[in-house]
């Protein structure tokens, strides 16, 4: 359902939610944001709870860094400590660390909601059509997205070519030395590929000095306005609920 929302409406909502998560230094509020994001992914978007849990891992590791820093270097986070002093997590430093930890997960999950429910192509088209993103940048982003899987295939072919020269099959996973040796040829490939794409785009009229049509850009519907209204209304509601937590 969220996939059908206009990408820019979703982007605005996510930015506001991220800002709220950054500005409101309250563990219950962060927990409420996390719960909302998980509910959106699992209940509305029907994503696997395991996937959502897996998504939390890198953000949790990142947040854990904040937690340990707050506990070990408390004198450097006076403001946070003061804010966290009112929270029920025992020691001030630990409380501040917990809030920072939860904030990292909350921000990560809000970003994940956007990334998992937004078609990258539609997002870039919407940016070009509605926010006047330069087509040069827009199509550079398209090319970059095309390029990522090609780069993996290119790396594999280079590995195969080298393995053939050596006369034995390649390892399943390259060792650090082999990985390092792939950097230069892959960089050279990336440069060649980028210049070919740039030449082709120019030959086909990109940036010819006239305004261009953007075909298939998503249109703003009433449901997008309704989505924004709900997203904005939900924030104060979450804040109010989080204040009730003892």
């Amino acid at each position, binding site marked *: 359902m969220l996939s059908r929302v206009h990408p820019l409406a979703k982007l605005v909502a996510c930015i506001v939610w991220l800002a709220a998560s950054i500005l409101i230094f309250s563990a219950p509020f962060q927990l409420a944001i996390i719960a909302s994001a998980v509910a959106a992914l699992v209940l509305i978007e029907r994503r696997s709870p395991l996937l959502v849990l897996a998504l939390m891992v890198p953000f949790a590791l990142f947040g854990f860094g904040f937690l340990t820093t707050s506990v070990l270097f408390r004198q450097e986070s006076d403001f946070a400590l003061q804010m966290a002093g009112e929270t029920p997590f025992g020691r001030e430093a630990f409380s501040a660390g917990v809030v920072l930890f939860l904030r990292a997960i909350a921000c990560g999950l809000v970003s994940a909601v956007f990334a998992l429910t937004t078609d990258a192509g539609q997002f870039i088209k919407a940016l070009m059509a509605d926010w006047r993103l330069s087509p040069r940048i827009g199509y550079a982003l*398209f090319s970059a997205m095309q390029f990522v*899987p090609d780069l993996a295939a290119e790396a594999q072919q280079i590995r195969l070519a080298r393995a053939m020269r050596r006369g034995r099959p390649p390892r399943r996973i390259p060792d650090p030395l082999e990985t390092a040796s792939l950097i230069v040829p892959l960089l050279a490939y990336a440069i060649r590929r980028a210049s070919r794409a740039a030449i082709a785009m*120019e*030959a*086909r009229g990109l940036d010819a*000095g006239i305004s261009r*049509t953007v*075909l298939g850009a998503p249109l703003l519907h009433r449901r997008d306005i309704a989505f924004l209204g709900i997203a904005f209304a939900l924030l104060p509601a979450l804040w109010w609920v989080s204040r009730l937590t003892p």
Partner: protein
Amino acid sequence: MADAPAARWRDVGVRYPYADAPAVGPASLTVGRGERVLLVGASGSGKSTLLATLTGLIPHTIPAEVTGKVELRGENVATRTPAQWSADVGQMFQNPEQTLCGMTVGDEVAFALENQALPAEEIETRIGWALAQVGLPENWRSRRTMQLSGGEKQLVALAALIAQHTPLLVVDEPTAHLAPAAATHLRRLLLDRPGDAAVLIVDHRVDDLAGLVDRVALIDADGSAVDGGAPRAFFRAHHDRLAALGIAIPPPAALDAALRADGIVLAEAPLTMEDAVAGLEALPPGEKAAAREIASAFATAHQARQSASASTEFVAALENASCAPLFGPTVLRDVSLAVRRGETIAIVGRNGAGKSTLAASLAGLLRLKAGRRTGPMGAISFQNPENQFLAGSVREEVRDAWLAAGTDAAAAGAKVESTLAQWRLSELAAAHPFELSQGQKRRLSLAIITAGGRWPLLVLDEPTAGLDGAGRAALEAEIRSLAAAGHAVALVTHDLDFALASCARTVVVDGGGIAADGPSGAILRDRALLERSGLAAPALLPLLDFLEENRC
């Protein structure tokens, strides 16, 4: 400028920075309005460079020193940027895989039209029309271009080109990776332009093109352009010159030359093998018998025979194999295929049938999803030759290949020079591999993989793409020599004449498995099978039919 030609080069020469010699020129060439011109030349002769000067990509985007003058419809190209010429000139580059701009098939076709700020409804109509023209289903609009095979990407690039409706189309090897039936259809589509729309086409596969163009021009050894006139006269008049330059000669023209060498002159220079057969039929009885002998020798020379060294010993075998490309889904199921020593096998099929996947699985370079593979690892010459280059110069690449094959450093020197000469790379020995033209890169990749003969099984994936006539001849000879030395060679190709000439056995891949497997002489003459599998009959077929009907 209403009567000015569509395009004109006046004494145009191009020299790239730090290059010792000009890449092309000074060359003069004119393409009239409504004219369809085929530009031929040996690989590395500067054809692509000359095309890139047409809208000013050289020197505007690609730095080079350009002399002379280029005009489009009478206007100096330097007065506008390359992007501003896009409404007048539609261009398709050699490697469409690396020049796709859109995320989806629909985006790709729409790209140039969006840049011209055409109304959305008009763009939608043209996308539908162009997809139908190239034979892509309407529901492919939303398909991701990165999920398509090489040939399918080429079809999308062609759809994007014809959707532009420009008065001049410039295409560089537009069908190099396409199956024969699709390639023939698309060549006709490209060249059957309405009104005064002109087409300039560069291709090494000239068999079908010869009958479709108005004029042929040639880039000569000194970089100049020679206007050869109508194709029928061109291939007869310039046969020896083309052969000396290493440019591909269509089989009917080659047969015509063989007949003329023995004093038999067909009433009309043939453009197709059907023309040649009609000419043979029309000969007086006295000459017809002699002509039949020459034609028979010609046909024999263009059909591979089983190598004398072919044995019963298997080099590699797949048993009930399920094959899948790297990180991709299974495309072939329950495949059983065995290759013997000294055997040459052509793997043919429509675009996206899974030919490359089968070949790489046979070589042991892709892990099977199910089933079993036996035999030592083989080597593969990739579709994109750049993937095989690791050294800083052509000579180093060849030297490394010989050293890897177990040759000691002292003996390698002479072998390296001999390999360079064999593949016409001696003059490019000091160049970096990435500086070479597409055809030269192909020759280098083949030189590397065949050096030292260390592989029991060699897989060559589309080895003729970008190769000129001399390159094809060298490859054909090399395949024969490898087979004679007991190596097995598997050839993935869309070039069925090359398959017939170099492989004794043919495997047709279709419908997620092997549709046919047998002697090339039988498989490639089975018109019903070829049609079912999206393949076109080899050009030689009418001659084989004629010889059978006129047995002595």
